[in-house]
């Protein structure tokens, strides 16, 4: 007989024993944005992509979105993007940055921590060009501005949401490659879930160990890992697995469970539109915002105003509510958010 999608995972069970959300009096994120957008009509911005490149529906695309907005609001003169290849050697990264700097792009934004070493060298060769790097806390080079995020804080909120949505008191996390960056997601997620429901069971898995990048590129494996967690009883799964996340969504959907997306609002993402009804929320990492803020600061000539870390208090990370599947949870999640933003809850970035 033909199988009909949508299993009945977690239909039994009453969910977890939940802690009440923290009570925060001075509330909400303290978003302070410096003045109106400056004019950047003379500025040419170069963008060097990481593997995945344009169309990854993740941080590469988010950085493009930031620049698009800058174009609209500040009249940016020109934007040039260069793509990276998988497993490429270090000098290819240098060449890419150098090429942009040489052609007079300023600032040049390196998307991804893979550029850290290349940037150290190229930034020294072009002292008058301003560089930014996403996801790597590269300090101490005068013309390099790091744009980093508190992924663990956003993931904490994902954990809270998962804890409130599970009916089996059992949730899952699927990471692509076991790198320190992805482990931050895992750490925050687990902390958030435990904070909301101390008894909760959390399955965590990575597709490949560090150094084997195929973990971000193998939806089939993502599907199997998620299926394993679902069969084991988990009914909400959060992924930080790049393109492999599609596999996670697909398993979640056929099991009738729930999923939480990552980086951008995956509910609205065309490439996973088939699965949108199970994506209850996404952890947002606002690379677009950081890029926009950075370009604005550069246009003003005031790079010191770029925050050290884009965290919850700056809306640098957050969560999405598209689809309206967690509308009832918003007050609870926002309470946690406020607690983190005000520093009452500290989230560790190590699992």
């Amino acid at each position, binding site marked *: 007989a033909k199988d009909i999608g949508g299993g009945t995972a977690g239909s039994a069970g009453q969910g977890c024993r939940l802690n009440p959300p923290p009570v925060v009096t001075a509330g909400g994120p303290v978003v302070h944005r410096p003045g109106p957008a400056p004019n950047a009509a003379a500025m040419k911005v170069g963008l060097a992509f990481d593997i995945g490149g344009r169309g990854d529906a993740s941080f590469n695309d988010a950085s493009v979105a930031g620049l698009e907005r800058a174009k609209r609001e500040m009249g940016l003169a020109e934007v040039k993007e260069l793509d990276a290849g998988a497993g490429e050697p270090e000098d290819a990264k240098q060449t890419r940055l150098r090429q942009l700097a040489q052609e007079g792009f300023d600032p040049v934004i390196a998307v991804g921590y893979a550029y850290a070493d290349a940037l150290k060298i190229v930034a020294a060769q072009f002292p008058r060009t301003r560089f930014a790097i996403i996801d790597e806390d590269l300090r101490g080079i005068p013309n390099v501005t790091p744009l980093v995020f508190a992924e663990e804080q956003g993931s904490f909120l994902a954990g809270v949401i998962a804890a409130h949505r599970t009916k089996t008191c059992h949730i899952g996390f699927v990471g692509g490659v076991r790198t320190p960056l992805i482990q931050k997601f895992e750490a925050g997620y687990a902390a958030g879930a435990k904070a909301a429901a101390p008894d909760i069971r959390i399955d965590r898995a990575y597709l490949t160990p560090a150094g084997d990048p195929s973990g971000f590129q193998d939806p089939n494996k993502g599907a199997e890992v998620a299926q394993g967690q679902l069969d084991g009883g988990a009914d909400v799964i959060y992924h930080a697995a790049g393109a492999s996340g599609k596999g996670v969504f697909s398993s979640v959907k056929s099991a009738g469970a729930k999923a939480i997306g990552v980086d951008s609002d995956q509910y609205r993402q065309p490439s996973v*539109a088939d699965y949108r009804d199970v994506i209850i929320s996404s952890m947002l990492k606002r690379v677009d915002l950081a890029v926009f803020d950075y370009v604005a600061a550069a246009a003003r000539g005031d790079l010191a105003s770029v925050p050290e870390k884009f965290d919850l208090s700056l809306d640098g990370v957050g969560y999405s509510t598209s689809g309206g599947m967690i509308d009832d949870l918003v007050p609870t999640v926002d309470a946690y958010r406020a607690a983190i933003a005000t520093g009452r809850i500290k989230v560790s970035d190590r699992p």
Partner: protein
Amino acid sequence: MRTEVRTGTATGRPQRARGPVPGWAHAALWVVVGVVAVSFASYQTGLPQLTSSGTVQSAVRLGIPILLAGLGGLWAERAGVINIGLEGMMILGTWGGAWAGYQWGPAAGLLAAAVFGALGGLVHAVATVTFGVNHIVSGVAINLLGAGTAKYLSTLLFEPVSKNPRESPPVPKFDTYSAQPLGAWLHELENLQRVGISDVAGVLGGLVTGVSPLTMLAYLSVPVSYLVLWRSRFGLRLRSCGENPIAAESLGVAVHRYKYLAVVVSGTLAGIGGAALILNPGQAGYLENQTNNRGYIGLAAMIFGNWRPGGLLGGAALFGYSDGLQLRSGGTTVHALLLAAALVLLVVAAAQLWRRRKLGAGVALVAAAAVLAVYLATDQLPEEITAYTPHLVTLVVLGAASQRLRPPAANGLPYRRGEQGARE
């Protein structure tokens, strides 16, 4: 006049002591041993995942692309052409499948994957059969070419739609089917958690639920390959090209044509294997580097299976099973597998002893003890190892058993028409 055909003369090899057990029963016996060992381990460690229907379904999903690639290898090598280009043909298959699939549905995708794979096979055939290029060299080049072509074409044709040069738009999938009420009944049995019965029910249940037409096609292609290759005129001729093409040609077999056909079929199967990566549920569409060396692993499964469809099925199943197990439930279950492995090794030792092969029995016994010791001394295996369990298993099994393997005699040798008898 002495009339009887002598066997085992001074030149011939001694006749292998073949008991009354036919080959298929022999294989079935080993399957039973494997299932028993795994269910024993499952019972001992309290890890039902070892034989759960979910694990088996994973094994099927992960094993199908490998099975198809392996069958592709089988077809080519039985005709004497080594096909290490399976990976490239598989990549072409994923690309073609996604390209046609997203526009015209999964059936069209399957067809296109087959055609693209076949094109890859055709290139290999032209290089190896017509131009006599070293088969491995041609294969390496085809892998380069397949990857490059797929990348180039997706930049050209997918990017405008998917906004990503490395990815196709989502491809509609095949529906899946389950044999009901059998599946439900097996599921109930499995849930009883009775030793043995539930294990078998889990395995069988995994095989009959959530099956897509593509999976059925793959299941079918094993017996079909066997029947065609071993029970048909066509297959006899094809195999003769892999064993002794000169003899075949002297009997009027159009060796070149059969080699061409075999390699094209091989590419077709590899292409369908690629389609299995995108047209089965749970997968998105074409994605760069998605095949992830599955073509090579298919080749390994074929060698593992001693160039026979049944053995190849076993190899692909083992691969899919150990991969599925480690992906679904990580280190603990793979650790439990050690217990099962030790048990199987014990049976091997007993079998060797029964055949009066003392050395073999000793080696198997020592290996069993070593595996058992590792099992007892550790609680878990490092992730870096479990993630590559299938590869390690392949290497170990080849190391242990490769000397009994029997590749086609003329496999990989260049062959040119009209050179019969020259340089003998």
